[in-house]
């Protein structure tokens, strides 16, 4: 059984923190204003627009303390991670989820935040939100359907997402819990206490800026650690800005994935709008979805 945190009501408070990389205050401003327009109170943590001179938004102790405080504060009904980058893996084992387990709240973000999604799902069976973060609100983009899908998800509206078919899709339908996130982080967490469980699940993966050979190696890690053979379905999201070596790999990323999973028999779709590009729908990790892949299109529908 999965626990769904309470959906948000007008006047509820959303905490914003940076558990990983540094983010300038100016880049979070639109996000704060839009969330306020949506009717929420906002509590901005010190790690947001901090004075940090390094890669991180603060040292491990500062990032941990702030995340812990927001996790434990009963008045905060959701925590939006302002950005990813790198850093959640450095504090995850020190986070105390005791109060969160009693009073679950939405944890929102993607990319490096994948560690939080996988850790919380695998250990506590509480749903989290894989969704756009602060930068996605900038330059008027908060109006796009992807940021708006986060708004709907927070209020408890059931989602139904559709996208075009891809020539490498494998047709079929599946109803199962959804898990997933950034491929690098899913591979990296293998064998740790934040390892993802995929058996009988619909798995979604996305990636950015990796070499094709490196993505291939990570997919082999998922395969060899038994994460690909018993899926209910596979959703391949955006793989943006992928790089190739001087000696070309010779396949596109979708061909690489297709070759690895084609023998398993479950439905697979390529190019679903989830990832580091603008096209990034809010997905509830741990919630039940129905995936239907036909010749013409792909539909992912949240189940009641």
């Amino acid at each position: 059984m999965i626990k769904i945190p309470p959906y948000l009501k007008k006047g509820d408070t959303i905490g914003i923190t940076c558990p990983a990389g540094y983010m300038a205050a100016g880049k979070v401003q639109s996000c704060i204003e839009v969330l306020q327009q949506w009717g929420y109170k906002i509590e901005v943590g010190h790690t947001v627009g901090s004075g940090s001179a390094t890669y991180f938004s603060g040292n491990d102790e500062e990032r941990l303390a702030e995340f812990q405080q927001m996790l434990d504060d009963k008045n905060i009904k959701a925590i939006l991670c302002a950005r990813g980058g790198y850093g959640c893996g450095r504090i995850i084992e020190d986070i105390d989820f005791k109060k969160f387990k009693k009073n679950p709240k939405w944890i929102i973000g993607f990319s490096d935040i994948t560690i939080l999604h996988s850790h919380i799902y695998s250990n506590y069976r509480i749903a989290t939100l894989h969704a756009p973060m602060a930068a996605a609100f900038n330059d008027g983009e908060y109006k796009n359907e992807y940021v708006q899908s986060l708004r709907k998800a927070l209020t408890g509206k059931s989602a139904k997402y559709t996208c075009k078919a891809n020539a490498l899709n494998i047709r079929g339908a599946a109803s199962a819990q959804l898990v997933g996130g950034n491929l690098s982080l899913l591979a990296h967490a293998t064998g740790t206490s934040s390892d993802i469980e995929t058996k009988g699940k619909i798995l979604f993966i996305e990636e950015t800026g990796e070499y094709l050979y490196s993505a291939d190696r990570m997919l082999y890690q998922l395969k060899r650690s038994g994460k690909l053979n018993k899926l209910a379905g596979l959703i391949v999201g955006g793989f943006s800005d992928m790089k190739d070596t001087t000696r070309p790999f010779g396949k596109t990323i979708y061909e690489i994935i297709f070759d690895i999973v084609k023998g398993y028999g479950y439905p697979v779709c390529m190019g679903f709008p989830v990832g580091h590009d603008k096209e990034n729908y809010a997905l509830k990790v741990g919630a039940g979805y129905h995936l239907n892949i036909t010749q013409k299109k792909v539909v992912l529908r949240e189940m009641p």
Partner: protein
Amino acid sequence: MNRKHFLSSLLTTGVSFKILAAPPHNPDISFRIPQQLKPGDVMGITSPAGYITIEELQPAIEQIQSWGLKVRLGTTIGKRDFSFGGTDQERAQDFQRMLDDPSIKAIMCARGGYGSIRIIDQLNFSKFLARPKWIIGFSDITVMHCHINSNYKVATIHSKMCNSFPGDWLNAEPVQKETIVSIKDAITGVKMKYTALPHLKNRNGIAEGTLTGGNLKTIETLAGSRSEIKTAGKILFVEDTGEYLYSIDRMFWSLKRTGKLSELKGLIIGGFKIKPDDPGEAFGRTLYDIVWRKVKSYKYPVCFDFPVGHQRNNYALKCGVLHRLSVTANGVELLEV
């Protein structure tokens, strides 16, 4: 001139030299040591990962022949499937033939690159187990070392490969010659000895344990698979190249969080060629900070800048063989027991 004194006067770090030729006996009885090679024996060369041309192999072939060995080239040499030395099937078949052929006494991987993980599950080691032979290479070949050490408890050799043999042997730098000669020493039963300079960040101590390790990224990639490295009670060495500091940090977290650092006898940090941080993304922590944070709660010896890695001073190391690591204020010594 006495060779030992000649060498130690020439080099202050990473010296490996002949002490005595020993039969293949391992004090760590849980591991088996392949037969040492004799003059006239055949060394097989294959490409389980990236592609290589026959021309690129010439220096290695000539050098290996000068050791009194015969060379047999696999069918993957000169073959190319984009970045690979042939398709997965071709590379697996070539490697399998060399594993199974009793006339081939050792297998040197021509180069690394990427690809071993794509064929490892297709390989059958039953004939190899009946008659173990040295498997030689590093970087992507770490897959072979971990897989063979963990599943079959047969020792392997982590060393330079064919693409690192100097083209002009006479004019090669002493360290280039020494590292290549260390491969010959390793396959002919010489007990190995290595030294490294003292380092301010080292943690002193003396430990004995079976050596295991390789390329850090590759070790991370094997987590959760049946090729996963086993480190408990062992001396672990790691090296890597071309990775960002943040990525190196994440890989050391993987080692720690998968329980690979808590029961070590010792930790050897080899060469790390670090990719510079992107502008505005300064990681703000050095390699030493990264490692120290993961191992500070343990007591075993730790040394930095050991001569292993994607660099000229990359000596042959025997994975699966018992070694004594001594880290003191005077320097580092690693000695095959």
